């Protein structure tokens, strides 16, 4: 759409600008302040320069939680994106199945995150949970509170349970926007199922899939409540992702300086990846 140049449009944006600035800029400045200073309580501060940044960037603890975070995000993207596409492709396109699928599949998205954690906790308990009990009955030695491997398995399964529907709904919407004429043309050409997917469906879903990856990257990178309730970051530190580690440092140990420096590094990483995605997305939008 060709837009008119109108500087008065700023008046329309002011409420949003004020509300978000009030919430984002002031707290962010507090974080920036802390990150360069040492505090002794009672609002006494001493300038520390870049010491906290160096300390965090060189600390093994940060490297470990960052590594765990990337591994987690990578694994869940690798599972959720293909699985979400597969489910969207097989979902009914009309009839009573559509609302049933949509309602039931959206359910996990609307459950408070700590309830998701609590629900999976009692679902996976080895003695009284359905998942834990069944796995043990099948002969697996499963206990997510003690074995790191099991804790990872449970956290990933929980995230797949919680968020795959988002990918499904996005892909389904993308598929629905394809005109029937494309499929007819493919049929006349005698295209195989794979060729139809590869050359018609996948390109048409490109936009929503970019968005799905962006959203899943962002949200899984910030994940806090669900693993915190499920495993508490344990056993040991094996499932302590970035946010969990950060909150531990800031509110648990009250190491405000290092925690603030870590926050900024953390935010910067998310921002960098999202900026790349955002540009890709806008390029897609400009093409279509």
């Amino acid at each position: 759409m060709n837009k008119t140049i109108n500087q008065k449009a700023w008046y329309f944006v002011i409420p949003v600008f004020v509300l978000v600035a009030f919430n984002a800029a002031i707290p962010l400045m507090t974080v920036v302040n802390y990150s360069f200073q040492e505090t002794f309580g009672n609002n006494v501060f001493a300038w520390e320069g870049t010491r906290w940044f160096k300390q965090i960037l060189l600390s093994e603890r940060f490297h470990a939680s960052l590594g765990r975070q990337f591994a987690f995000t990578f694994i869940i993207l690798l599972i959720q994106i293909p699985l979400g596409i597969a489910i969207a492709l097989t979902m009914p396109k009309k009839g009573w199945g559509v609302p049933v699928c949509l309602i039931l599949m959206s359910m996990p998205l609307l459950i408070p995150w700590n309830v998701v954690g609590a629900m999976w906790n009692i679902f996976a308990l080895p003695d009284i949970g359905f998942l834990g009990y069944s796995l043990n009955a099948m002969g697996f030695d499963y206990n997510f509170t003690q074995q790191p491997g099991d804790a990872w398995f449970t956290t990933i399964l929980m995230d797949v349970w919680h968020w795959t529907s988002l990918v499904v709904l996005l892909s389904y919407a993308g598929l629905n926007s394809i005109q029937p004429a494309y499929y007819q043309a493919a049929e006349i050409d005698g295209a195989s199922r794979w060729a139809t997917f590869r050359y018609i469906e996948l390109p048409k879903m490109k936009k929503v899939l970019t968005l799905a990856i962006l959203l899943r990257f962002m949200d899984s990178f910030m994940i806090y409540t669900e693993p915190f309730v499920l495993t508490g970051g344990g056993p040991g530190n094996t499932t302590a992702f970035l946010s969990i580690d950060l909150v531990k440092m800031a509110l648990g140990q009250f190491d405000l300086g290092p925690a603030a420096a870590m926050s900024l590094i953390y935010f910067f990483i998310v921002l960098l990846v999202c900026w790349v995605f955002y540009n890709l997305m806008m390029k897609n939008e400009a093409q279509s």
Partner: protein
Amino acid sequence: MKKYKWLVPTLYIIFLMLPIYWLINMSFKTTTEIINTYSLWPQKFTTENYVKIFTDSTWYMGYINSITYTVFNTVISVAAALPAAYAFSRYKFVGDKHLFFWLLTNRMAPPAVFALPFFQFYSSVNLFDTHIAVALSHCLFNIPLAVWILEGFMSAVPKELDETAYVDGYSFGRFFFKIFLPTIAAGIGITMFFCFMFSWVELLLAKTLTATAAKPIAATMTRTASTSGYELGLLAAAGTLTIIPGAIVIYFVKNYIAKGFAMGRV
């Protein structure tokens, strides 16, 4: 191959429903039964967990608190986002692209980063432990989201609509409320759905900014772990009840969900 296509969504839905069923199953058991026996359905069916929640004010107030700040937040977010989204969809102005991306960066900010400064900030302006504090803090991610979704819907409305209305002698205000808003009613509904959803499920900020007076239900639930051992039955019943508002909201917007996602902006 085509005959068995229905299997994939069916199996997926079963996988989704299993943990939910387990939660509901537990909520109808007594705590002793939960701890001592493993059973696929309640042996001694009881509703005492639910009775306790509906009669104990520390429990049911949690629901009222959560719903209160969620509704506040939805109203504030959509009301503020409407004019802004209109500006982004219709006009070019200095810094519009940067502002749009800056808004989105707030959707990307990890809440854990903001938890401590939010606590200090809202305490210093005397809003700590109020519904409005939680509602305002959730604006951080809901306003960018609302602007983004609404801008998508508004851009799909041809500009000729605006121009015709002005030619017909409508003032801007009358055009906006009488013609434009009804045209994008579905978009507003979807935006409200997503604002409600993200405010309802968020806990980290809601918990950090409240103590007793505005404590969300999800935070009340963590109490069962500390006071009298693990009251799993009560926890399960409270969890089951948190699913209901979401389920009701989904039911109302079910026909619009797919369309909302089709805009590619969630």
